[in-house]
């Protein structure tokens, strides 16, 4: 599954105008230190599957605008072109849309109230790893669509925050309700769900559970669990997720590593980042409603990323996918630049 399949709405000038107005309104509310941040990633990606190469230039800009002491407006857009081969040469498609647009109100130390169109907090991929500058592999996991209710976003409200935070451990939660929305810009299913995780700060181990339920058509439940382990003082990360839906289930487990043994992370050797991801999906029945492969599939992804100075990264990977219908090789390369700057110029203080 590609990272874009959940984006199915179209960019509208109106929304841009709204965003600009929000950004500007945050000046009048607060002092200089509430300057909105503009951030995101620009990338050029290539993917070769069964001999066909697709090229995708893309930009994912983000705005985070604090207002007063308790409010944050945040939004991310995606604008991309896809060039893929067809019988007549190259076919070209364009996509531009808002991925999410939400207002966050920090109501108390334990509660933040979110309203708008938000990324569904199911598992970890959607909320944490889907931005193009964060993911180690260009492709999302095969099970990424499980629990994301077609669009990956909800339109409604969410309550979230830190339930318990101690020196050694913390527990956090997110729970939401979404209405059905056929809005061009923000599409969603009527649904509800939540996630809770436990994080052990000393061992850098996180374990979490997710659940959600679609409340339209045939109502279905989705269950997820994630385990992340990123041992202290290493640049090693092990991340994994398992998800189960009505008709299919699967898991992914990803390891990545940078060595500090040859002059630290910023030496030329330390900038290499080998990756490995193992994935499997299993069909529970033949009703196809969840975006997972139609037959049981196994896939191994081998990657080698290179972390250049100045927030630039080169991503490369080779994947071999096995299923009873066919076996394929997928080669991917990309260059990603991460940007981050204040929304307007000005002096400190």
């Amino acid at each position, binding site marked *: 599954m590609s990272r874009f399949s959940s984006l199915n709405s179209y960019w509208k000038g109106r929304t841009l105008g709204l965003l600009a107005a929000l950004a500007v309104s945050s000046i009048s509310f607060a002092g200089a*230190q*509430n*300057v909105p*941040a503009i951030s995101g990633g620009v990338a050029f990606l290539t993917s070769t599957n069964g001999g066909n190469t697709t090229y995708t230039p893309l930009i994912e800009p983000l705005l*985070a*605008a*604090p207002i007063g002491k308790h409010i*944050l407006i*945040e939004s991310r857009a995606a604008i991309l072109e896809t060039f893929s081969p067809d019988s007549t040469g190259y076919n070209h498609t364009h996509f531009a849309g808002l991925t999410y647009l939400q207002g*966050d109100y*920090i109501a108390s*130390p334990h509660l*933040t109230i979110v309203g708008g169109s938000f990324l569904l907090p199911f598992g970890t991929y959607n*909320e*944490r*790893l889907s931005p193009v*500058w*964060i993911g180690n592999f260009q492709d999302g996991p095969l099970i990424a669509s499980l629990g994301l209710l077609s669009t990956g976003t909800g339109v409604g409200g969410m309550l*979230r*925050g*830190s339930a318990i*935070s101690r020196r050694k451990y*913390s527990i*956090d*939660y997110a729970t939401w309700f979404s209405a059905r929305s056929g809005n061009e810009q923000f599409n969603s299913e009527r649904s509800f769900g939540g996630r809770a995780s436990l994080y052990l*700060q000393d061992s*850098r181990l*996180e374990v979490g559970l997710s659940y959600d339920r679609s409340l339209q058509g045939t109502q279905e439940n989705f269950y997820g669990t994630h385990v992340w382990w*990123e*041992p*202290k*003082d*290493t*640049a*090693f990360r*092990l991340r994994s997720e398992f998800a189960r839906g009505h008709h299919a289930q699967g898991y992914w*487990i990803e*390891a990545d*590593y940078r*060595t*500090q*043994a040859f002059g*630290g*992370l910023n030496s030329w050797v330390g900038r290499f980042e*080998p990756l*490995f991801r*193992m994935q499997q999906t299993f069909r529970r029945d033949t009703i196809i409603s969840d975006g997972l492969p139609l037959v049981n599939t*196994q896939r*191994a992804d*081998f990657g080698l990323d290179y972390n250049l*100075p100045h*927030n630039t990264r080169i991503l490369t990977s080779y994947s071999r996918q*096995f299923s009873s219908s066919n*076996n394929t090789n997928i080669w991917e390369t990309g260059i990603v630049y*991460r940007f*981050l*700057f*204040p929304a307007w110029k*000005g002096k*400190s203080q």
Partner: protein
Amino acid sequence: MSQKYFFAAAVALGALLMSLPKMQSQATQQTPAQTSKKQPSDKHRPQPSDNEGQRIFDGQCARCHTAPDGFSPRITNAIVRHMRVRANLSATDEKAILRFMNP
């Protein structure tokens, strides 16, 4: 290569990757928030909360992504509030990180 051997090799490689960090001795020197224009008031900071800020920064800010190379201190507030919501940080952690990044 048959599927069976392919996956055996893949798992072996994965196991190798996982054992690498044990061979690691040095500590990660991720200087966080190398805020490009740090104000010169650093010396007035009380030591203990400093270490606390560092501890929380180290434990929280590398979980999902690497730290950026540097950014203007004017957007620290926007970033930390954003991350408080995204990572469900506690109010105490948010304050400690803010102090640590923009003393």
